[in-house]
């Protein structure tokens, strides 16, 4: 684990942490790409640090604004995509299954 459990905020973003984020998010960034993105992310984080000034004591978090919870429908079987339709866009498939490189 690199850095992610540290409690300090924007200042904690360094190349090692960018490498960790790249791995976590499967971005596959090269060294040059990481060097380029680091100052950009630092600048954005410095700007969003404005949030720390807001007085949010006693304020609830808003995750969504529609006000709907636990929307249910009857559990009825309906026709969906056929296997062929569902696989039609996959770059590699075989015998009705997705084919992927080996997990190592």
């Amino acid at each position: 684990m690199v850095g992610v459990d540290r409690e300090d905020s924007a200042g904690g973003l360094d190349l090692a942490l960018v490498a960790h984020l790249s791995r976590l998010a499967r971005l596959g960034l090269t060294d040059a790409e990481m060097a380029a993105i680091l100052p950009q992310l630092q600048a954005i984080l410095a700007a969003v640090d404005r949030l720390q000034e807001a007085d949010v004591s006693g304020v609830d978090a808003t995750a969504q604004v529609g006000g709907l919870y636990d929307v249910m429908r009857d559990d009825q079987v309906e026709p969906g995509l056929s296997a062929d339709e569902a696989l039609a866009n996959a770059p590699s498939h075989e015998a009705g299954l997705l084919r992927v490189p080996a997990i190592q």
Partner: protein
Amino acid sequence: MSLLDLSISELGRGLRAREFSSVELAEEALARVESLDGTLGAFLRTTPELALEQARAADRRLADGADPPALCGIPIGHKDVLCTKGVETTSGSRILEGFRPPYDATVVARLAQDGAVVVGKMNCDEFAMGSSNENSAFQPTVNPWNSERVPGGSSGGSAAAVAARLAVATLGTDTGGSVRLPASFCGVVGVKPSYGRVSRYGVIAFASSLDQVGPLAKTVEDAQLVLSSIAGPDRRDSTTAAAPVGDLARALQEGVRGLRLGIPREYLEAGLEDGVRGVFESACRWLEAEGAELVEVSLPSTQYALAAYYVIAPAEVSSNLARMDGIRFGPGEPRAPSLLEAYEQARNRGFGAEVRRRVALGTFVLSSGYYDAYYLRAQKVRTLVAQDFSRVFEKVDALISPTAPTPAFKLGERTQDPLAMYATDALTLPANLAGISGLSVPAGFTSGLPVGVQVLGPYLGEAMCLRVGAVVERAADVWRRVPAGFDG
């Protein structure tokens, strides 16, 4: 003069009077795209076979005389984040090149049901992330009013095509201003419906707590007709509001006499260009002359809205875009030596700079140790932003402001500075955080560039936005102006 210069109701009269057919209308739209879109770049692809098939069906429906819907036979375009069955849908991203969705988005299906004719898919910023259309992986779109300027984003192709009369109306999506901003920059009407008013089934997600689909059109009435077609509950999208849409057309005739309209003080502060301020002040005078009472109001948490948005939206991006793995759709890297490398290569090749930034940022703000300081705090600030709006809507019927602090900026001007690009949406994104309704309507020009006025209404207050927008439109009297080079 082109048939595409006409409003939907004018075209409807012509179609019903057999002055021209829907096939002729579609052919004219396609011919205009062919001859005029080369430099504009509004379309990622045209769909001539689909268009002519739908137009022939529309002509049969019109000939049957059984009072077809207002949109029957009308040429439209869909932003490329909307799934269209069998028609390539890329979201402006290389990672979805060649993706042919096996189903239509609900909004696409509803417009088809009402007889609209799809002429193509509109260019946009990659996965709708951007304010200038320069983040499209395929091509930039330019502003029809000035080819050195951006059309705005992320629904820039949708706005430019309507302004250039290449489609009569289009759909866009608005996550932080992506319908209203390009509408303002291109001189067309754009509506951001309230969260839940329009189905997102089949809409390739950017930030699911913020995204809404909305129309772009030449007039407020045209936008209303498209909105009325697409709005309303959808059993395939559990976030749609159950409340009935009601008769939105009536709002267009109601006027503003007796309405109280608020002007948010914070929206007229730093960075507002004089030309934009001038157009906005004219709009205020027109609304007063029509009998509205204007009052200054305060939305004090506006100062934190941009920061909250650029935590919440990237967080949702990092989650939503995890599905872009090159396994089920897109070119992928099926010959990579391992699954991990397949993911990394597909995403590295497939994602552009802005998408990478947002995925990385979103991953960061959601990671343990940073979650409370960024994501949770941003969600609390989101509550403050929503409370600001609730408070003022107890006192006023709608809010008015400029849609953007500036008119369309130059191509390349903000591409090297993500923060300058983000600031473009300062006046539009608070409405997405709060989930309320909004619209941008052309109100005039500064230095030859269009300027839009934003109307914000309460949650499910689309009718109020249309009502105020229609009055601004009538007073401004600019919607028949066509950009030079597109007026043939």
